[in-house]
C-alpha cells in the first residue's frame, strides 16, 4: 500500500514541470528576435513508477513527471553549410566592392574621363597641324598633354590608396580574428565547466555559434565537435574551430581551452609592396609555429581583400603602365624624328620625372624643356638646312596615332613595346581594358547575387528549424497553462478527498 499523500506529490511535480515549461516558453518569446538565438524545448519525462502489489500482481503506478533537460533546436550540418555559403558570399561581395571602386577610376561614360583626355590630346595635335607656326596651338598641345599625364598620376594614386586601404583592412581583420579566437576560447571553457556539472548551457552555445558565424564572413571556418570520452555519465563536448583550408597541416584557431593568434608578417616576403601577409603567431607552448596561413580558395572577405590588393590591382596598374608606355613610346618615336620652330631635333615629348627610370603612369611628365619652350614641340620633319615652320607632317603623324600605327612606319621605326602589345591601336587596347574591367565587375556582382540567394536560403532553413514561432509558443503556453491549471485542480480534488477522509468518524 502506498502513501495517502502520494497524489499531492504527483500534482506538485506537475505544477513544477508545467511552470518550468512556461518559463522556457517565456524565454523563447523574449528572444524571438534575438540574432543567433535557437529556440529551446523543455523536455519532460515521467518519473520512475512505483510498483505496488495488488491481488498478488505487481502494478506500476505513475508518480508524475519531471523536467529532464532543456535543449536547443539546432542542426550542426545546416550551420556548416550556411557558413560555407556565407564565406563565399563575402568573398564575392568583397571583390565586388573593390572592383566597383576601380571601375570609377577611368570615370568612363562621363565626359571627363581618361578616354576624353586622350581624345583631346590627339585632337590638339591635329589642331596644331593646321597652324604649326602659331604658339597658341603649341600651348594647347602642352596643356592637353600635361592634363593627360596628370590624369595618369591621379589614377595611379587612386590605385595606391585603394591598395593601402585594403592593407589596413587586412590588418584590422587579423585583430578581429584574434578577438574572436579569444572569445571562443572563453566560451569553450565556460561551456565545458557547465557541462561537467551536468548542465546544458544553451545560451552560451548560441553565443559561440554566433561568433563562429561572424568569423565565417571573414575566413572559411570548419567546426569539429565531438564528445569527450572521459565522461560516460554526462555529455561533455570537445570543440575545435579551424580556419582557412581545413586540410592544411595547421589550421586550428581554437581547440577547447587553447586559442591561437594571427599576426601580420613583420617581414613581408614581397618587400617591394610592403603589404602585410597573414601569418600564425607562434604559441608559447610550442604547439603552433609561425607560418603563413593557408586561406583556402575563393572564400571569405580576407581572401578577397588580399587577392584584390596583391593580384588584381597590381595587374590593373600593369595594364595602365602598358598604356602609358605605348603612348609615350609612340609619341616619342615620332617626336624624335621631327623638329619644331628651333633647330633642336631628337627630343622626347614624354619623359619620366627623374629622366632615368622607365616611364610609368606615376612618373610620366611632358619633357620639362618642352614645357618651358613650346617652340620645341616638333611639328615637321627634321631638316638639317633649317626650319620650315609650316611643315606639319610630324604633328599629323602623332595625331594619327589615335587610330593606328601606320604613321610610325612612315616616319620612324615601331617601338618594341607596341610590337608586343598586340592591339591595333591605343584606343583598341584601352577599349579592351575597360571592357575587361566591366566584365570583372559584372561577374563578381552576379556571383555575389547568386551566393546571397544561397546564403539567404540556408539562413531561412536555419531559421525554420531554430527560430521562434510566436504562434507555436502561444499554443505551447496555453498547453502548459492548462497543464498547470489541471494540476492545481488535482490538488483541489485531493484536498476534498482528504477532507472527506479526515471527516470520517467525526461526530457532530
Amino acid at each position: 500500500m502506498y502513501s495517502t499523500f502520494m497524489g499531492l506529490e504527483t500534482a506538485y511535480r506537475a505544477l513544477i514541470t508545467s511552470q518550468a515549461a512556461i518559463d522556457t516558453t517565456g524565454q523563447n518569446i523574449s528572444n524571438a528576435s534575438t540574432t543567433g538565438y535557437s529556440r529551446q524545448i523543455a523536455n519532460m519525462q515521467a518519473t520512475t513508477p512505483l510498483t505496488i502489489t495488488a491481488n498478488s500482481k505487481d502494478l506500476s503506478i505513475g508518480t508524475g513527471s519531471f523536467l529532464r533537460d532543456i535543449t536547443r533546436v539546432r542542426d550542426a550540418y545546416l550551420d556548416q553549410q550556411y557558413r560555407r555559403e556565407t564565406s563565399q558570399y563575402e568573398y564575392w561581395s568583397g571583390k565586388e566592392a573593390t572592383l566597383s571602386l576601380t571601375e570609377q577610376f577611368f570615370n568612363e561614360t562621363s565626359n571627363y574621363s581618361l578616354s576624353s583626355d586622350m581624345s583631346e590630346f590627339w585632337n590638339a595635335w591635329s589642331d596644331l597641324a593646321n597652324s604649326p607656326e602659331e604658339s597658341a596651338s603649341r600651348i594647347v598641345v602642352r596643356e592637353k598633354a600635361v592634363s593627360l599625364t596628370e590624369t595618369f598620376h591621379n589614377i595611379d594614386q587612386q590605385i595606391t590608396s585603394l591598395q593601402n586601404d585594403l592593407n589596413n583592412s587586412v590588418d584590422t581583420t587579423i585583430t578581429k580574428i584574434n578577438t574572436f579566437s579569444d572569445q571562443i576560447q572563453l566560451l569553450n571553457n565556460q561551456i565545458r565547466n557547465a557541462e561537467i556539472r551536468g548542465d546544458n548551457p544553451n545560451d552560451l552555445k548560441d553565443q559561440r555559434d554566433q561568433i563562429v558565424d561572424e568569423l565565417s564572413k571573414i575566413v572559411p571556418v570548419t567546426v569539429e565537435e565531438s564528445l569527450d570520452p572521459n565522461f560516460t555519465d554526462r555529455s561533455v563536448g570537445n570543440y575545435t574551430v579551424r580556419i582557412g583550408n581545413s586540410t592544411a597541416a595547421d589550421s586550428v584557431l581554437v581547440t577547447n581551452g587553447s586559442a591561437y593568434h594571427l599576426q601580420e608578417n613583420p617581414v613581408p616576403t614581397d618587400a617591394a609592396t610592403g603589404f602585410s601577409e597573414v601569418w600564425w603567431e607562434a604559441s608559447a607552448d610550442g604547439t603552433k609555429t609561425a607560418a603563413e596561413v593557408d586561406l583556402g580558395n575563393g572564400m571569405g572577405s580576407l581572401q578577397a581583400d588580399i587577392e584584390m590588393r596583391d593580384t588584381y590591382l597590381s595587374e590593373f596598374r600593369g595594364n595602365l603602365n602598358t598604356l602609358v608606355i605605348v603612348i609615350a613610346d609612340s609619341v616619342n618615336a615620332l617626336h624624335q624624328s621631327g623638329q619644331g620652330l628651333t633647330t633642336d631635333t631628337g627630343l622626347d615629348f614624354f619623359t619620366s620625372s627623374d629622366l632615368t627610370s622607365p616611364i610609368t603612369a606615376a612618373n610620366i611628365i611632358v619633357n620639362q624643356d618642352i614645357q618651358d619652350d613650346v617652340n620645341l614641340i616638333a611639328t615637321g620633319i627634321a631638316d638639317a638646312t633649317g626650319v620650315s615652320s609650316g611643315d606639319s607632317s610630324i604633328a599629323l603623324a602623332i595625331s594619327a596615332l589615335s587610330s593606328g600605327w601606320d604613321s610610325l612606319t612612315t616616319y620612324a621605326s615601331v617601338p618594341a613595346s607596341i610590337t608586343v602589345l598586340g592591339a591595333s591601336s591605343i584606343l583598341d587596347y584601352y577599349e579592351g581594358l575597360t571592357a575587361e574591367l566591366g566584365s570583372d565587375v559584372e561577374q563578381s556582382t552576379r556571383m555575389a547575387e547568386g551566393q546571397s540567394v544561397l546564403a539567404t536560403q540556408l539562413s531561412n532553413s536555419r531559421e525554420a528549424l531554430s527560430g521562434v514561432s510566436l504562434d507555436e509558443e502561444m499554443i505551447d503556453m496555453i498547453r502548459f497553462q492548462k497543464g498547470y491549471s489541471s494540476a492545481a485542480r488535482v490538488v483541489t480534488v485531493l484536498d476534498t478527498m482528504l477532507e472527506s477522509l479526515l471527516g470520517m468518524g467525526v461526530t457532530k
Partner: protein
Amino acid sequence: MRITNNILSSNLLSNLQKSSNKMIDLQNNISTGEAISKPSDDPSKITAILGLKTNITSMEQWKDNASQALDYMSSVESVTANMTSMLQRLRGLAVQGSNQTNSPEDLGEIKKEADQIIEQLGVMANSQVGSRYIFSGTNTDTAPWPGTGLWTGNTESLSVELGANVSFDISINGQQLFGVNSATGVSDFFTALNNFSTALNNGDYAAVGNSISDLDSLLSSFIDGRAELGAKISRVETINNNLETSIINAQTNLSNLRDTDLAAAIVDYNSTMNTYRAALSVGAQIIQPSLVDFLR
C-alpha cells in the same frame, strides 16, 4: 517548412530591398538619360560606346580642320583671283601699247598704270593669310620674295588632317605659279613684268608686243593654279559634308546603344513601384497579426 516570424519579416525586408534597388537603377537611367553609365552595366556594349565617342570627337576635329582649310583656301583663292585680273589688265595694256599709233606720251601714260599694277603684284606675291606667307610652301614665316627678288619658298605641302590617316595638301605651288627656276630662284613672272616695264620705258613697240605672249603664259599658270585650288576647295567641301553626315549617324548609333528607352523605363519603373507598394501593404498585414492578437 516551419515558418517563423523572423522568416516572414526578413523575407519581406529582402524583397523590399530588391524592389528599391531596381527602382534606384531605373531612376538613374531615367534621370541621366543613359542606360549604360558604368562599364559593368554592359561590358560588351562599352567597347562600341567608347569607340563611337572617340570617333565622334575625332570627326568633329576633322570637321573643324576642314572648315579652317576652307577659310584658308578661299583667302588664297581671292588673292590669286585679284592677281589674275591684274595680269589681264596688264595684257590689255600690252595690246594697247604694242600699237604703233600710240605717241610716246601715250606710252608714258600706259607705263604709269602698268608700273602701279606691277608694283601691286609684287606686294601681292608676298601675301599673308593670318601670319602665313601663302606662296612660301612650308617656309610660312618668311616672305617668298625678299628684296633680292629671288624666291625663298619651297614646294613642300601644307597638310591638314581630314580623316584617319588622310592628310590633305591645302597649299598652292609657288614654284609653278610664278615659274621659278628651281636652281637659281629667278622667276619667269618677275622677269616678264620687268621686261614689259622696260619695253614701255624704251618705247620699243616690238618688245611690248612680245610681252603679250609672256603675259599670256603667266595668265595660264595662274588660271591653272586657281583651277587646282578650286578643285581642292570643292573636295574639302565634300569631305566636310560627309563628315557632318557621319557625325550625325555616329551620334544616332551612340544614342541607340547608350540612351535609356524612356517609355520602357517609365513603364518598368511604374510596375516596380506597384510591386513595391503591394509588398508594403501585404507586409503591413502579415507582420502584425499572430496568435497573440487573438488570445484574450
